[in-house]
């Protein structure tokens, strides 16, 4: 088990190094100099040079890469070119919206998908299965941002149960904030739930065809007992991967939904930064998202080992 964790940690570190390198290089080749962009086209060359020096843009690429990554390790993400405030602070503020939103959506998606997928597998070929499969077929075909617009149309504009967008902040009270995140979370969660339910169903059906389910039935377990005691835990193994991928998607995919609901999350931060050529913010947010994906995959690997004893031995 220790060997397993150490090996995973090493590959995690390697992935982060390569990913940071790629992000840095891609942003480096971006046309347009932040300094001249910030000062406008009429700026004097001397002023631009001074600003470049102040932003550290006159140093070598390697020096800047090491400074950037070294800073990140200590929690210093640099200073925004545009706002002249620490990037770490900007990200932290936005994360208070994006992270709860992603978790909220993930919880909803899992809560819907598990029962639906298990029900469909248990009632394979019967009306409940056909109903669930039809609904998920539709669910995976709906663009989440359009679904979000429809939710706004119905629940905010017509019924006036929710506001159409914006975020009051957590200072406004937990439930007020949660309420503002509810429609966005539903819009994010439902299409994901459809995918997850389909995977849960097919994974469970695969397991139900295994020999050990037959063994369990021969012991005297009812079909339902065999499904719950022997089916679900084994079926979780592929489902965990998808949940891991989905969390990453929800964090990054919220970018579009944040646009629909005017939420001050990471997504809007990244769009603003691109239009203002605030590349250090772009770099850091993208790195953060990639870090989240790699981290979640690492945790999923650990969860695998917890679910499947076979993995504890080999690595």
């Amino acid at each position, binding site marked *: 088990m220790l060997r397993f964790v150490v090996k995973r940690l090493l590959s995690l570190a390697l992935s982060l190094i390569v990913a940071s390198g790629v992000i840095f290089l891609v942003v480096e080749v971006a046309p347009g100099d932040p300094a001249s962009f910030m000062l406008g086209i009429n700026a004097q060359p001397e002023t631009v040079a001074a600003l470049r020096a102040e932003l550290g843009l006159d140093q070598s690429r390697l020096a800047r890469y090491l400074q950037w990554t070294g800073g990140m390790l200590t929690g210093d993400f640099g200073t925004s070119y545009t706002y002249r405030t620490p990037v770490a602070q900007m990200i932290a503020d936005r994360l208070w919206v994006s992270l709860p939103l992603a978790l909220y959506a993930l919880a909803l998606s899992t809560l819907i998908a598990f029962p639906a997928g298990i029900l469909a597998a248990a009632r394979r070929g019967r009306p409940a299965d056909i109903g669930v499969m039809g609904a998920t077929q539709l669910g995976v075909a*709906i*663009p989440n941002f359009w679904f979000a617009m429809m939710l706004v149309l119905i629940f905010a504009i017509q019924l006036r149960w929710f506001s159409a967008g914006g975020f009051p902040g957590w200072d406004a009270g937990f439930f007020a904030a949660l309420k503002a995140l509810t429609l966005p979370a539903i819009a994010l969660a439902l299409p994901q739930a459809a995918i997850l339910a*389909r995977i849960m169903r097919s994974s469970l059906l695969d397991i139900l065809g295994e020999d050990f389910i037959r063994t369990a039935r021969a012991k005297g377990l009812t079909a339902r007992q065999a499904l719950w005691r022997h089916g679900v835990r084994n079926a979780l193994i592929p489902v965990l991967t998808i949940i891991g991928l989905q969390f990453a998607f929800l964090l990054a995919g919220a970018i579009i939904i944040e646009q629909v609901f005017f939420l001050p999350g990471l997504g809007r931060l990244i769009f603003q930064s691109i239009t203002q050529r605030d590349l250090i913010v772009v770099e850091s947010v993208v790195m953060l998202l990639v870090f989240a994906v790699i981290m979640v995959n690492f945790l999923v690997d650990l969860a695998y080992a917890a679910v499947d004893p076979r993995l504890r031995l080999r690595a």
Partner: protein
Amino acid sequence: MMSRNLILGGVLTGVFAAAALISFVWTPASVETMNIAARLQLPGAGHLLGTDHFGRDILSMLMVGARTSIAVALVAVGIGMGLGVPLGLTAAARSGGFLDEAIMRMNDLIFAFPSLVIAILITAVFGPSATNAIIAIGIFNIPVFARITRGAALSLWKREFIMAARVAGKGRARISAEHILPNIANLLIVQGTIQFSLGILAEAGLSYVGLGAQPPTPSWGRMLADAQTMVSLAPHVALIPGLTIVAMVLGLNLLGDGLRDALDPRLKVARA
């Protein structure tokens, strides 16, 4: 065996493909003519699906938009298959070796970048355009095809008929081309259909946030973005393009399921 899925999916996909093709020679109205007097009209005799906030004919815009969507998704699938399949075949043929390891690590790395983040990075560098949307979606398709190809090829490499071919003195590349590829073609076709439908969704999302095809090229995603402010005044301008996307994606997914059942009921296709 022709299943209901296959027929329904085929018909839906065929209708959209036909609409896109017809739009090259004919549309009910010009998509560039604005007629503010006739704006936000409900579906009716003059405009079958109504007009948008500039008075443009929605049906015509949808037809031309289908062109963009299909082109973007198709080329993106092409990129994914063209690069991903050879990579996957190579990895499987060199299973456990350095090349395999290198290819799979690269895959993991691309997977670590959510597709939207790739798109944002690319547009941050090169500016928004349909081409960049294609590249962003295409890059994300490469590891999908590489992974599924490798998985299927690996299980074939264990089969005895491959061993028989090796005993017959054939090299790895030749076995990959002659024995492996034809036996995984069905799987790739089905996965291609699914990636195609995901491509349509991704293109709509990117153009909705302004990172896809730029005006005046009509695109489904931007029609929705434009409709957002009018949604309370004229719900149909948001409803109709949205339902169009749903129908197209649904059609492709049904086609994929139908093809899978028709080609080989044992095929395992990743639906993530």
